[in-house]
């Protein structure tokens, strides 16, 4: 797994590449938590369009970050899930916790709508 991190408009953008399994959990947790602090971002936008695999270890750290963001009154949106992994998002229940959309553009729209609503 490799991570590309960017921040924009109070939001940390995470682009994940490769296999998102047991081996990647530690690095993901450390890097995201550190970047959330450094950038003082409230929201998380997680782009999974380049992942090649995900299992419950990956889902686990995503859920962990979700809780953190919520505790900080932020929002989290996932984009770029491919058909092959959609069932994992359904079965895990993530789908009922946060919006999952196809593109980063849609994700931004959602984040901006909700921020506006919240304001």
């Amino acid at each position, binding site marked *: 797994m490799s991570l590309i991190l960017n921040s924009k408009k109070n939001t940390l953008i995470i682009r994940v590449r490769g296999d998102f399994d*047991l*081996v990647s959990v530690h690095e993901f947790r450390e890097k995201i938590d550190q970047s959330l602090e450094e950038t003082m971002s409230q929201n998380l936008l997680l782009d999974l369009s380049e992942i090649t695999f995900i299992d*419950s270890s990956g889902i686990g750290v995503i859920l962990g970050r979700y809780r953190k963001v919520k505790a900080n009154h932020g929002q989290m949106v996932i984009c770029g899930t491919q058909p092959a992994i959609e*069932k*994992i998002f359904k079965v*895990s229940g993530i789908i009922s916790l946060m919006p999952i959309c196809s593109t980063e553009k849609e994700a931004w729209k959602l984040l901006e709508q909700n921020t506006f609503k919240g304001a």
Partner: protein
Amino acid sequence: MGKIVNNKIKLEFLSKGENVALARITIAAFVSQLEITLSDLEEIKVAVSEAVSNAIIHGYQNKPEEIVTMTGILKGNTLILEIVDQGIGIPDIQKAMEPAYSTDPERTGLGFVFMQSFMNEVKVESQVNCGTKVILTKQINPDLKNMAVS
């Protein structure tokens, strides 16, 4: 009709995180000897990944010098996978298989949920301090779309 495949493999590897991917790739190559849909393939990879991760994290508590064994059998279009560790074992299998149950606060308890959602059958045999065997069975549906053109 897809050709009938009968085959058998056994993979033994050290209980290291990197080998979870190795186990997935080996099983993917193994079942790809059959006509298989991408979605079946993906589901098998997830189930293997869960069972092998559990052997490493829970069974062997992340000790990297232990051995995990994975056996794969293809009989016609039935896949039978066994993932075995000689680790700490599971005291209460029924409880362990409950959704969201985990003995590790950092984890989700979704491993068995995924195995059960993605395979036709999940059986667990375990003895405390002896180890755990997870038996996963799946009927593989022929890939009708690809078969039509081949």
